[in-house]
């Protein structure tokens, strides 16, 4: 227990340590300690000594054999190599065009012209005028995708009629995981290192295919205001790192981190890496880029799932029913019901139905024998309608993901547990729960990491860990005639549990699955079958398990979020008592920085009734 208490402040410090590592020293004016040089070599100051270590994990990235730990040796070796006569793709100047450009400018190094055929062709082919940071948002029924993903798109000059952004190239940094690795191995190597991180160049249409069509994630495109010179530097540095390994770590040195480094190199002094503390959540990195004034415009590209949901919802009711009937094979595409519609309406129904059939084939694996002939009939029928307006695009959400509430939450509350008064502090490093301000987040989705609730009971001056959440994921996605997603939840950690005589801190594992139905805008009802497991030597048999149910209502809006319901759990191993709860929780949002919260629980357990209430303030930062 004591250990857990000590963990609290440690987590807090961990989450708040900002930029301490990334600050550069000014006590020595040597060129090799110039921040720009350290950036080009991906050097970070060592934590325990005053040396440096590069994040590059590839000897070929260095020209000196001591390059990994010595910016000075690398600087001298680079200078030496640049001055070598000759040329061609293997010359240091061709391998390191960004270093070359920087040295020429910084120390006025003047070098003869040389040819770098491979690099020149690469740059010509990429034909880049501007750079766009693309953020793949999370998907409704996949809270695990909440952190998002980022990559850079290299946009060709926009005044050209042959400009086409689908064909633009993208640069991304990803873990090169072996496809046969299991989830567990994947998690282990991801956290502790073990996967090489590689920089890949791919056309944008392949990214759209992956994120928008397969993973159902909306894309936000943030065009950066880098000048042509800065873009050239960014490309030159991308060339330097593209075939070199930087070990991939999910939480900090991840996809987003390496892109921040590229932007830092392109515009010296930006110091986006300085914002990184213990973790670089891609959605947070987008905030930093926006806050540093790097964005000139933003474009929203809805995913296939968002588009189809929207186009179905804009159909009148009877056409929705018709569309569902066609998609399920009850009504033929050539039937009278369809041909009776006016051409423009028929086009809308056929378009929406086709998109829906494709979505279901991707997401729900509808068999090809059924879906392909139907898809063909739909398109053939559609191709006979001329000049129908193209389907309406879903509107851009008024609040972007990067404009939602900040993800670190600190809460202070006071309340009573069965007439004992307490004060409670909650720290939650990431990310969002269903009662937090919903703008910028998917409704009904919740993902919390490392949340800690500590209580101080005033009657006997006792400080207690109330709850420690490892991970908690919840996804409430409403079902309708087109979509029937499963609502589910899973979580583990430690919490106070009632043994009948005392409240002990016990590790728990919980999960559940069920359904959710939309009642009105922002309101849904849910019914979840749950299962709980608790382990503690104070429990009679050392552990206890409970099947149960959770029925409730959830209301989310920009001003107020509410959840109320009833839970029942039947503990069947040790205590053999039922635990019934009625609960109500409300958050009143003061902008997106603060929420006032109140919660009340009435519980019947061990044949006695007990009430808990609490009220306080959440702050997001």
């Amino acid at each position, binding site marked *: 227990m004591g250990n857990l208490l000590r963990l609290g402040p440690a987590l807090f410090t961990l989450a708040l340590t900002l930029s301490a590592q990334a600050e550069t020293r000014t006590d020595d004016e040597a060129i090799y300690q110039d921040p720009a040089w350290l950036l080009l070599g991906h050097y970070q100051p060592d934590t325990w000594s005053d040396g440096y270590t590069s994040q590059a994990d590839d000897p070929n990235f260095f020209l000196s054999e001591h390059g990994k730990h010595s910016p000075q040796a690398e600087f001298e070796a680079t200078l030496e190599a640049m001055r070598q006569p000759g040329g061609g793709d293997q010359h240091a100047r061709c391998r390191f065009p960004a270093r070359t450009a920087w040295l020429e400018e910084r120390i006025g190094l003047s070098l003869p012209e040389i040819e770098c055929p491979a690099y020149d062709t690469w740059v010509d*082919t990429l034909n880049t005028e501007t750079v766009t940071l693309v953020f793949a948002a999370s998907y409704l029924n996949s809270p695990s995708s909440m952190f998002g993903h980022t990559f850079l798109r290299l946009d060709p000059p926009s005044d050209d009629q042959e400009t086409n952004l689908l064909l633009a190239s993208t640069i991304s940094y990803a873990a090169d995981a072996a*496809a046969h690795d299991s989830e567990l191995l994947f998690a282990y190597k991801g956290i502790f290192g073990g*996967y090489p991180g590689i920089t890949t160049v791919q056309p944008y249409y392949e990214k759209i295919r992956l994120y928008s069509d397969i993973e159902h994630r909306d894309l936000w495109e943030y065009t950066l205001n880098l000048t042509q010179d800065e873009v050239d530097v960014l490309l030159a540095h991308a060339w330097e790192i593209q075939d070199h390994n930087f070990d991939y770590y999910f939480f900090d040195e991840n996809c987003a981190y390496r892109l921040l480094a590229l932007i830092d190199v392109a515009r010296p002094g930006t110091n986006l890496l300085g914002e990184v503390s213990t973790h670089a959540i891609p959605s947070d990195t987008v905030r930093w880029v926006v806050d540093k004034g790097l964005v000139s415009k933003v474009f929203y590209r809805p995913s296939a799932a968002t588009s189809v949901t929207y186009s179905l919802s804009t159909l009148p009711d009877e056409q929705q029913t018709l569309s569902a009937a066609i998609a399920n094979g009850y009504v033929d595409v050539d039937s009278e019901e369809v041909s009776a519609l006016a051409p423009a309406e028929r086009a809308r129904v056929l378009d929406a139905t086709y998109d829906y059939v494709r979505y279901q*084939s991707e997401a729900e694996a509808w068999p090809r024998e059924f879906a392909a002939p139907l898809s063909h009939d739909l398109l053939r029928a559609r191709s006979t309608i001329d000049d129908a307006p193209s389907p309406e695009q879903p509107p851009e959400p008024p609040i972007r993901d990067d404009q939602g509430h900040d993800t670190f939450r600190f809460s202070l509350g006071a309340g009573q547990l069965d007439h004992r008064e307490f004060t409670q502090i909650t720290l939650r490093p990431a990310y969002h729960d269903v009662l937090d301000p919903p703008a910028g987040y998917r409704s009904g989705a919740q993902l919390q990491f490392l949340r800690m609730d500590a209580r101080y009971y005033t009657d006997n001056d006792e400080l207690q860990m109330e709850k420690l959440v490892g991970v908690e994921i919840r996804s409430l996605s409403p079902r309708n005639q087109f979509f029937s997603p499963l609502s589910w939840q899973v979580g583990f950690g430690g919490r106070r549990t009632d043994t009948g005589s005392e409240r002990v801190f016990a590790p728990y594992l919980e999960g559940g699955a069920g359904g959710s139905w939309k009642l009105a805008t922002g309101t849904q009802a849910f019914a979840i079958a749950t299962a709980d497991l608790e382990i503690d030597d104070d429990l009679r048999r050392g552990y206890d398990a409970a099947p149960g149910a959770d029925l409730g209502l959830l209301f989310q809006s920009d001003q107020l979020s509410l959840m109320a319901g009833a839970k029942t759990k039947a503990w069947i191993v040790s205590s053999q008592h039922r635990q019934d709860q009625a609960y109500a929780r409300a958050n009143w949002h003061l902008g997106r920085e603060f929420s006032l919260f109140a919660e009340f629980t009435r519980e019947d357990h061990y044949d006695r009734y007990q009430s808990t209430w609490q009220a306080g303030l959440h702050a997001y930062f």
Partner: protein
Amino acid sequence: MKKLIAGAILLGASSMAFAQPGCGVGAMIWKGQSGIAPHVLAATTNGTFGNQTFGMTTGTLGCSTNESIQSMAMYMDSNIDKVARDMSRGSGENLDTLAVLMGVEEADRDTFRKTLQDNFASIFPSSETTSGEAVDAIVALMEQNDALSKYVAA
């Protein structure tokens, strides 16, 4: 310029085999994906797999000397579902991309879109049509069209 674009698309996809008019079969339309199970942890931790693979096909390089047709075949191979959709509607960004890859100028784009929409049934005669067959049909249609034939001249 046209060469650059064709080059870019070939560069981006250099690791893939792709369909050629009259050579490769190409991806069958609505074949769907296999083996891309969502990796829960990959998504959570914003990792991704470097070696994602997409609709693969058979085919050999060098059957057409026309780089535009090559790159269109390439694009059709990985985006056939969406190209077919846009074609049936006579509009859409995937159709515009085909026009760019074929080097169709602004003035002829309407003809291009209309021709493909009107002939949807001959480009995609069945639900078993492959991207290679569709490319052949598109090239044949363009050759017969006064305004479009210049874009497919060998």
